[in-house]
């Protein structure tokens, strides 16, 4: 995995995205986290390869997706082929077989932009695809799980594009993994093929927690209220239930030395590469998140 300077990547994205689409694009994932906590990371390069960008609202996502893809490709951004999708799709390619919009900027292959969107309705938890028909081929705009949470109250950057709030990304990951699933990372993670996706995503929650605590020792106490509001806003009919089980996956991770070690590996080779914690220190981050954020959220879920 290559190292990139988050601010450079964001600047490049902002520069390339059509002005009219910037307010519909929210950067999520490790790039967003590393830019948000750049003070903690001493503005150092971070190991990431993809700049995940969420398009919203859903009603405008397809239109914005087409415009952004066209504009970027016209400016020399290139489609990043995969084994499964060596070329963009065609008009007759089924929606579920369409490749994602993955484009590398001109002159570098170190990272690529990837477009996603929010689910159409709160009940859409599985992977859903929407077609983006561009002059250079057809692409799929993917939505899944709890991505809508990352679209709540985003942070506007100086570049004019938006960043997902780290605590919302953490909540989305917690809910996405109510248990440690067996499936491993497609293509492995930094040379290891045994890393479970759940451990990588829940490890991200721990990395966010560690970085957040480095900036403000009491910040986790703010999370339950923000999480509750977000859940009520996005999942009004089932927020109690979601809040009640938000910590299950993290709890399972903390109970398993093997899974926690995998989470540590992803942190130490990702967001926390500049100052990797020990296994015990990472466990403490989890315990702090549990005590300050998850347990109070569970308590809030018991209230009407």
């Amino acid at each position, binding site marked *: 995995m290559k190292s990139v300077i988050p601010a450079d990547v964001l600047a490049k994205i902002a520069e390339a995205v059509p002005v009219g689409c910037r307010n519909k694009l929210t950067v999520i994932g490790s790039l967003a986290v590393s830019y948000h906590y750049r003070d903690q990371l001493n503005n150092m390069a971070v190991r990431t390869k993809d700049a995940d960008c969420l398009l919203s609202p859903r009603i405008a996502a397809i239109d914005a997706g087409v415009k952004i893809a066209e504009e970027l490709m016209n400016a020399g951004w290139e489609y990043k082929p995969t084994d499964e999708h060596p070329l963009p799709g065609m008009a007759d390619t089924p929606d579920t077989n369409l490749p994602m919009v993955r484009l590398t900027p001109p002159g570098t292959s170190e990272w690529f932009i990837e477009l996603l969107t929010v689910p159409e309705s709160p009940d859409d938890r599985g992977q859903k695809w929407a077609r983006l028909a561009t002059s250079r081929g057809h692409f799929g705009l993917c939505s899944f799980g709890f991505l809508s949470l990352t679209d709540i109250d985003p942070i506007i950057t100086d570049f004019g594009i938006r960043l997902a709030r780290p605590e919302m990304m953490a909540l989305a990951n917690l809910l996405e993994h*109510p*248990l440690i699933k067996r499936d491993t990372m497609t293509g492995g993670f930094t040379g290891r093929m045994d890393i479970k996706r759940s451990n990588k995503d829940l490890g991200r929650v721990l990395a966010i927690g560690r970085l957040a605590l480095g900036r403000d020792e009491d910040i986790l106490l703010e999370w339950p209220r923000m999480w509750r509001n977000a859940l009520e806003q996005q999942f009004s009919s089932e927020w109690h239930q979601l809040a009640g089980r938000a910590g299950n996956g993290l709890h399972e991770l903390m109970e398993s030395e093997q899974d926690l070690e995998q989470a540590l590996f992803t942190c130490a080779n990702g967001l926390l590469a500049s100052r990797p914690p020990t296994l015990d220190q990472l466990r403490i981050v989890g315990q702090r998140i549990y005590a300050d954020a998850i347990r109070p959220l569970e308590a809030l879920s018991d209230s009407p």
Partner: protein
Amino acid sequence: MNSNSSRKYRPDLASENAVVEVKVSLSAARSLRDALVALAMSLAEKDDLHGYLVLLSPRLSKPFLDAELDGLKAALRPDLAKRLHLVISEGGKIVEGAESIRQDDRVLVEKGIRLEDASRNALPPASKQDEVFLIMLHQWVTGQGPMTSKWLENTVGCNYRTVASAIDRLGPAVSRCSDRSVSLKYFPEQDWGRLLATMKVRSTMRYIDESGQPRSPESLLKRLQMLERHDVGIGGVLGAMRYYEDLDIVGSPRLDLCVHCPNGTVDTEFVSRLDPALKRTRDTHNPAQLALHFIQRKEPMFDHKSDASIWADPVECLLHLYSARLDIQARGFQDFLATRGRELNNSV
């Protein structure tokens, strides 16, 4: 509702065939029912699972406990009812329900009993004569005037002989009134020095940070206040600064708390709720993040403020400064208390 969509029940201990839930000093019927129902629900998930609710020194009567258990069992499927057990332990020994524990589950249940006991610590007995001295000093520095032996006995929780011996030991520093009440005449430096040299009056536990991201005393304090503990007062630098704003220090190097434990035992479980990163250390050279000082006298002399904060008394705070080896600051605070004591007692 499947296990993914509901909040997962997490017993205190679990093996392949048994789950154990431990409750200490349970006093509410609702908590008892909640614990039994949660256990029963977990038993419904696996046919051969047995559940044990272990009550350590419960404050509910045996007939009441039996009635609650029987009532719930009557409402359960017979196969579940058979697998739900209540075990009562006092002083680390099982006093009820031992016969219901299956041989294979005995180790787990006994571990449950030790699990909770591990966080309870029996304290070495404090010197009651020193406590008498500290109370007299407190009354003097706060200008409370003379006190009777009886009041001292009740405040410390000792007999009249202990009070008499403590007063005799203070010799010329004590003023005796015609009504046989007593007070200090001045800050008895020599006796104070002796007390500091032995420091047998206080047990202290020290905790260090293991996270690499230590919480500040203020952050720990915020969490203490969320716990709403009425038996814990704030002492140390933060406490001293409340009495003496000119204390020569910037910030507080650690949080000092006074825990009132008149029965001689203390439950330190709350420390992990202040911060899971805190670990007890016996290495006095390692800078601590938290120090717990245990007050075993009957009255803690805490100052309860309207904002719900609870503060240790000034003499206690002075002890903490010396214990933290903040000798210069301690000396400054001591001089302040001595001056204030003189002023207040001269004006009485």
